[in-house]
């Protein structure tokens, strides 16, 4: 036990002396949170909306005012006709337009039905869809305002509501993604490099010849990264809550428990990688290519898994981060308890056991 503590202390020296790795470790989540949170947001804010109001009646004016008061659009009423809009679209100065036909208000009041035209720039489909959704929402809200409680015949108003994220806060989905990615990177890459470095240095031989139990070498290597990863996880959580105003709905304790399990899974994979290679570069490359990229692609936070061909969906099942992502989303964003996530947790646990036993077994083979 005392020997183990001596060893863990040494590992912490290694980590803290390596300023660059430390910077990557704690800089990465900060950079990712800032990037995903502010720069790469899929929300549409302050977009210029070209409005042509050919009706100029009470209803159209009210709608335009409603749009102006939302934070999503800057209304541009300088265009006078359709041609001007089409030119602006071609030049790229306009990306969405709303056109009220003449007699809009009359149609609405007399026939109970009126039309508007929404034009969007389809070359940016995400933006286009978002704009249509926002405008539809505003129009729907307006309809309800002018005819409160009235059941209008022959009109179907689709009620859209984004569950769990009604404000449309785009930070929500990627926070669990960043967690998975950062923990994966830190645990897998750094652990595998830490073990392989001892082999490169020749110190592994010394350790194996010493009375120190080989399995304790692995344990001692893993402990500092477990601690640092938990610190890292806390950092991401704090950033998410205080910088991006994400509300943690579920149990924090459960979050930490599941994350610890995921961290152990990643550490085991890191140790597994370190057993199969003898150079730090190979170890780094393996953990990057083998773990980082699948984590990015197959976790479901960047690209929806449902749209992938079945073969890729199959691959996604063996990516630990995919399960962790689901669990974190369920607990953090939906506030669900353990009874809802036990299946995913069991899968993670299974992966951990498999990776760890392979790592331990290979480590023993080296000795015989």
């Amino acid at each position, binding site marked *: 036990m005392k020997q183990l503590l001596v060893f863990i202390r040494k590992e912490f020296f290694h980590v803290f002396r*390596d300023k660059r790795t430390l910077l990557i470790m704690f800089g990465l989540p900060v950079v990712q949170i800032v990037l995903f949170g502010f720069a790469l947001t899929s929300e549409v804010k302050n977009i210029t909306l070209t409005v042509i109001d050919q009706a100029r009646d009470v209803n159209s004016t009210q709608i335009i005012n409603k749009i102006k008061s939302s934070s999503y659009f800057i209304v541009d009423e300088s265009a006078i006709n359709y041609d001007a809009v089409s030119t602006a679209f071609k030049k790229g100065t306009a990306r969405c337009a709303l056109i009220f036909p003449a007699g809009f208000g009359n149609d609405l009041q007399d026939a109970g039905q009126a039309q508007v035209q929404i034009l969007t720039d389809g070359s940016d489909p995400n933006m286009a869809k978002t704009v249509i959704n926002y405008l539809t929402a505003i129009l729907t809200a307006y309809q309800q305002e002018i005819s409160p409680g009235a059941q209008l015949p022959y009109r179907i108003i689709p009620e859209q509501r984004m569950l769990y994220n009604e404000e449309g806060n785009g930070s929500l989905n990627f926070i669990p993604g960043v967690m998975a990615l950062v923990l994966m990177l830190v645990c897998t890459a750094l652990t595998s490099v830490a073990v392989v470095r001892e082999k490169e240095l020749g110190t592994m031989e010394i350790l194996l010849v010493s009375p120190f139990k080989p399995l304790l070498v692995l344990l001692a290597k893993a402990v500092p990264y477990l601690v640092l990863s938990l610190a890292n996880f806390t950092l991401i959580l704090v950033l998410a809550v205080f910088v991006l105003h994400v509300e943690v709905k579920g149990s924090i304790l459960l979050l930490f428990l599941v994350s610890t399990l995921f961290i152990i899974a990643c550490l085991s994979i890191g140790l597994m990688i370190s057993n199969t290679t003898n150079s730090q570069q190979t170890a780094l490359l393996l953990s990057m290519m083998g773990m980082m990229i699948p984590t990015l692609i197959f976790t479901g936070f960047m690209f929806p898994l449902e749209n992938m061909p079945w073969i890729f969906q199959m691959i996604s099942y063996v990516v630990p981060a995919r399960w962790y992502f689901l669990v974190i989303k369920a607990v953090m964003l939906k506030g669900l308890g353990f009874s809802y996530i036990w299946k995913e947790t069991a899968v993670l646990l299974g992966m951990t056991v498999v990776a760890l036993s392979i790592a331990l077994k290979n480590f023993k083979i080296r000795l015989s």
Partner: protein
Amino acid sequence: MNDDKVIVCEELTKQFGDFVAVNHISFDVRKGEIFGFLGANGAGKTTAMRILCGLSYPSSGKATVAGFDVYKQQESIKKNIGYMSQKFSLYENLTVTENIEFFGGVYGLSRPEIRKRSDRLVSKLGLTQEAKKLVGSLPLGWKQKLAFSVAIFHDPQIVFLDEPTGGVDPITRRQFWDMIYEAAATGITVFVTTHYMDEAEYCNRITVMVDGKVEALDTPGNLKARYQAASMDEVFYQLARGAKRSAD
């Protein structure tokens, strides 16, 4: 009877499939002796050494190290030996003191004991000024001396040196051998493999391994006389010429 024999090998054999890496070797090493283990690459030196260090099991034969059986008492063997490899083997980003404390701790020495010995060692090596410096900043010769000192820090009965002086200049090598003599004088048995034939001359006795077998075992003087050679280099050449393994 075996009181002064710290390593005893009888018909020790290690086989990997069809390949007999170590072929029925027998020898013994006396306490306080500097025992040279020579052989071309692939002659089976490393395999034999790994068995004696408790890193691998022999296929057949008997061997005891420091009185412990290589089959059953590997843990006890490990406690009683020191090891230093051809690769420089201290942590570059730990200080001199931290390295000493780490390896002392791994061998289970108590903290006060480590501190006492560490102070003595640092001043003996003349590294008092550098004790708080990272090992990476020291010149290679000093690192090597420190690595050897760390290998015998826990007072092992035997220290195994696997080509300890690779890549070191002749003067440092000479100084390194002074340290080996000093250690041997305190009763530590030194088991050393080397490529340098001039170093072989420094050993009390030498084993020359060829194709997994012990071809010769004697003092350097006797070997030279027997093969009518002027230097160990010639002796080695005569013995190793018949080797078949280096061909493949």
